[in-house]
Structures are given as structure tokens and as C-alpha cells.
């Protein structure tokens, strides 16, 4: 009864009745389709329906995963941080025996001009006896063995070792000493004593001229 009334008033004022009239109008066609589905091949109908639901839900899942990607990747280093990933340092002013601390990727980098004595001391060591076996030559560039460039980050738990600034303790092996847990590094910044497992890391670097070194 009321459905009939509804249709009548719809004709008069379409703008008013549209939202409510739409589902009512589609009832007939839908019901017909539903009946066919139901009365017809029951088994295949069910399977086709299941497939549609599974497809819709899996599509939603894929979409959610696709949206999650940018929401997670936003946390990785932004373009301005990456842009500072390489620096150029002029080392002309560093005299033998001196070292400087500079900053690369917000981490300290030690640039040390080794004296011939320090180079010799580093080369004297029996590489096989080291915890992290490496020669000085492997840690420097050919012809520039006196330029020892390492990260100033202790490989134990990340403190900054002492020994780069003049007057600081250089440890028992004349290189660097980490005061946090007592790691001693030698003149090639190799771990010799204490808890640190590895030598101070050597960043990727290259001399782009005789006195300018590019780190990173």
C-alpha cells in the first residue's frame, strides 16, 4: 500500500523523494535476479558468489598494503638528509701526528695524518693475531698510507672514542681509546683490547685532489 503511495508522490516532487525512492525502485529487478540465481544452478551460483567476495576482500587487502607502503617508507631518510651523504674535506692543514674530527651523516669521522713511526708501528703487527685482521694498507689508499680515515664510532656500543683531539688519551696502543667500556684501538684504528668486536669502520672515501678527500 505505502509503496504505491510513494511512487505517486515521487512523480510530483522528484527532488524530494529521490533518495528514498531509489532502493524501492530497484527492488523489482533485484528480486527477479535473485530468484533466478536461487532457483537455477544452485551449486555453481554459490561458487561464483564466493569467488566475488574473496576477490573483493583480497582487493581491499592489497589496497591496504599498497597504502601502508608510503606510510612506512616516509620514515626512511628524507631527500635533504640523503643529499648530505657525501662531504669534501680539505686536509692540507693537518700536520703529521695531528688529527681532526669532522661530521659525516651526523656521525663523527676521524681524519688522522699518521707519522712515519705510527705507520711503522701499525705495519709491525702480526695481522693474524688481530681480532679483526686487516692491514693498514687495506684501510688506506695506495700512496696515502699516512691518511687514516675512520668513523669515530666505537664498534662496541657506539660511543665516540678519545684520541682524535690533541691531549686526549690515545689508549695503550697509541691510537684511540673508548672510555665507555675500555676498548683500545691501535694506530691503524684496529681493535686490540676491550669489548669492541671490530676495527673502527673505514667509510668509503677517495682523494679527489692531493689535499681534498671526498667521504661518502
Amino acid at each position, binding site marked *: 500500500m505505502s509503496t504505491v503511495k510513494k511512487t505517486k508522490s515521487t512523480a510530483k516532487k522528484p527532488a524530494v523523494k529521490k*533518495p528514498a525512492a531509489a532502493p524501492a525502485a530497484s527492488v523489482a529487478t533485484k528480486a527477479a535476479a535473485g530468484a533466478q540465481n536461487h532457483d537455477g544452478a544452485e551449486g555453481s551460483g554459490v561458487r561464483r558468489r564466493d569467488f566475488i567476495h574473496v576477490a573483493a576482500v583480497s582487493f581491499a587487502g592489497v589496497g591496504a598494503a599498497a597504502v601502508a607502503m608510503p606510510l612506512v617508507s*616516509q620514515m626512511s631518510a628524507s631527500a635533504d638528509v640523503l643529499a648530505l651523504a657525501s662531504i669534501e674535506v680539505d686536509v692540507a692543514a693537518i700536520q703529521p701526528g695531528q688529527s681532526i674530527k669532522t661530521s659525516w651523516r651526523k656521525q663523527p669521522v676521524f681524519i688522522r695524518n699518521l707519522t712515519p713511526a705510527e705507520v711503522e708501528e701499525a705495519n709491525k703487527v702480526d695481522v693474524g693475531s688481530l681480532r679483526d685482521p686487516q692491514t693498514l694498507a687495506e684501510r688506506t689508499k695506495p700512496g696515502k698510507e699516512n691518511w687514516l680515515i675512520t668513523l669515530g664510532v666505537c664498534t662496541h656500543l657506539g660511543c665516540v672514542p678519545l684520541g682524535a683531539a690533541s691531549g686526549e688519551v690515545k689508549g695503550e696502543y697509541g691510537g684511540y681509546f673508548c672510555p665507555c667500556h675500555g676498548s683500545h684501538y691501535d694506530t691503524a684504528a684496529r681493535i686490540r683490547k676491550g669489548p669492541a668486536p671490530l676495527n673502527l669502520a673505514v667509510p668509503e672515501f677517495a682523494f679527489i685532489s692531493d689535499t681534498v678527500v671526498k667521504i661518502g
Partner: protein
Amino acid sequence: MSFPWAQEYKPQGAVSKWVDERLPLPRLVYNAVGAGYPVPRNLNYFWNFGVLAGVALVIQIVTGIVLAMHYYASVDGAFNSVEHIMRDVNSGWFVRYAHMNGASFFFIVVYIHIFRGLFYGSYKAPREMIWLLGVTIFLLMMATAFMGYVLPWGQMSFWGAQVITGFFSAIPLVGEPLRQLLLGGFAPDQAALNRFFSLHYLLPFVIAGVIILHIWALHIPGSSNPTGVSVKGEQDTVPFHPYYTAKDGFGLGVFLILFVAVTFFAPNMLGHPDNYIPANPLSTPAHIVPEWYFLPFYAILKAFTVDFGIPFTGIIIIPAKLMGVLAMFGSILLLFFLPWLDTSPVRSGHYRPLFRKFFWYGLIPSLAILTYCGGKPPYTQWVVLSQLAAAYYFAHFLIILPIVSRIERPLPLPNSITEAVTGKPLPAAA
């Protein structure tokens, strides 16, 4: 749940059973938005918007948390940090544009949800509490949106903060001290920006809490429906899942298509160019307007142009500025009283010929006019139009609705939802 025929949650397997006995959270979900919640079978697409509003809130919270990882609440750094997000942060432009337009879409969805409630009488007994909580959510949303708009610290951010906190200075005696308390200073500055950021982060979670109450209150009487006729028996309802989850899935798809179209192809369409100029406390933009979703209220604020006083004595009781502020807040607060202003026993506007006329030819046009005029400069034609529309708005809720519900002769209601749907009267057995 109050319907005895609601399906009962049956844990499958030992783990589900173990969980159900200790923390019946799956049971709660099952009864709230699963097969355990019987819903009238005749809901139309307007009933999709509650779920969509929930989705919009989730979009805002997720994108907002991401933005907060990169944003600095500092008067010197806020603007640049937003641009840093837009330019350098991986996919930052996407997150920021989604948040910016997500706010607009949240309001679009909520406005449709509110109009649904207004037309179909969803605020009437026994659903008054749902309505009251809904209006509370709306107020919290407005506060959140306003504070969020301040955060990029552009020109519109700054002057929006200045003007909106200026409302409070209209209050006699305590106005100016109150404004200073809100801002932590004489003008919007670091203190205001920091507290707005703090509250902008907090309030969405408060909103989520009130939404839980809103849904809880909804589950006591169950959902209303387009006929407004109460559920009489099992044949009137279908389980929420899978019937309405499927329908909401489709609605969500349509919503997201529109959201994506705007976010990716016209992301600044709903914004204002001046907010891409860093805040300058020494220079106000030529036309300051709030975000589009505040325009009707802004129009009401501006529509009050004469002081209320005793004629010919020069004594002013309520100055126009204060009255504008009162009316603007009043225009929302009056919604709290709506269940007691509209006393008609018939819920749905379908069966209320007079109410329907006032709704479609009065309320909707007046709000459209207010929205349009709110964004216009104060020229005579816009002022006159918004005064007319605002006068109707107040009259509609406070005068017309109570009278209409008394004098109106509603159309005959169907005996039941099933009858309305099938056109057949109920079998006597049911």
C-alpha cells in the same frame, strides 16, 4: 543487544574459545558490527555515512601521526617543516595532501550523516542519547579542525587563530583575560601554536572515545530506518554482516574514488592560496575566510549587524559583536535541544508532508546560502542574503519545528518495515 533473534557468537576452535572466556573482544566486535547485530533491512545509501565517517577519522589519525613525525610546532619552523614534508620526506606530499583533504571529506561525510539524522528523525526517542553524543562529536571535530588549520602557520592559519580566539573577547568582563589565557599571550604566537599542536593530537582520540559511546548508545535501540517505523520482528532485519558490511564496502569504494580524485588531482581546490604565505603578524590578507566547512557559522557571525538595546536611549544591552558570537555558538548548541523541540511522534520525513517542505525548501537552501555568503566579502547583497538565511535557520529549529510537529497531519505509516519493503501486509503468524 536487545533483539532476541540476534545471532549468537560461537567461538570456532580452542583458541577462540579460550580468548572468548577471558576477553570476549571478538564477541564484542561480532555483536557490534558483525552478524550479531540485526539491522533494519530497508536502509538506503544515506545509512552508509556513519561507517564512512569512521573511516575518515581513521584516515585522519593515521596520516596525522605520520605528519607529526616530521612537523615542528615552532613559529619559525612550522611553515618550513610542512614544506619539508611536501618536498623532501618520502611520500610526504601524499600524506600531507591526504590529511588536508581528509579533513574536508570528513566534514562532507559528517554533514550528510547529520542531514540524514535530521530528515529521518534519528534524534527522536529512543535515540536522543545517540544524537547528543553525535553533536558532541561534531563540536570536538570543529575544535580539532580549527586547531589543525593553525598548525602550518601560514597567513590563514595565523589570522584564523586571531579571529576565532577574538570571539572570546566579545564576552563582557572576562573576555579579554580569557582570550589571553587561550593564546598564552596577546596574539597568536609560540605558546598558542604549541598548545594547539598538543590538543590537535589529543582531541581525535577523544573523538574516537565519544564515537564508541555513540555506537554503544546506537546498539541499545538499534539502527533507525527510512520509514521510521520500529523493528517489529526478525523479518524486519538482516544481520549487519554480511549484508551491511558488503554495502558499506561498496560505499567505501565510491567515497575513496572521490577522495582520491580530489587529493591527487586538485589537492588545493578546497584550500586557500593565502595559507601558502608564511604567517605575518603585521599584515592581514585581503579576504580572510575560514575553511569551507565553517562558512555557514561564519556567515551567521557576520549577519548580526545591529546592537540590541533600548531604543532612543543609546543604552546597549547586547552589542552586535557579542550577539554574533552567541548566535554562532547557539546555532550548533540548539541541536542539543532538537529531540525536545520536534515533538512529532512520526520519525521519518517521508510521512511528514509539512516538515518535509520546510526541510527541503527552507533549511537546506538557507544553509546553502549561508555557506555561499560566508565566503563572500561584506557587500550589501551578501549581507542581506545571509541575514535572511540566518533568520530562517533559527526560526526553523526554534519556532517552526515545534509548531509544525503540533499542527501537522502525518501520512499513514506502514505497519512494519517488511510491509513497506514488500508491499504485502505481515502474515498473521509473524
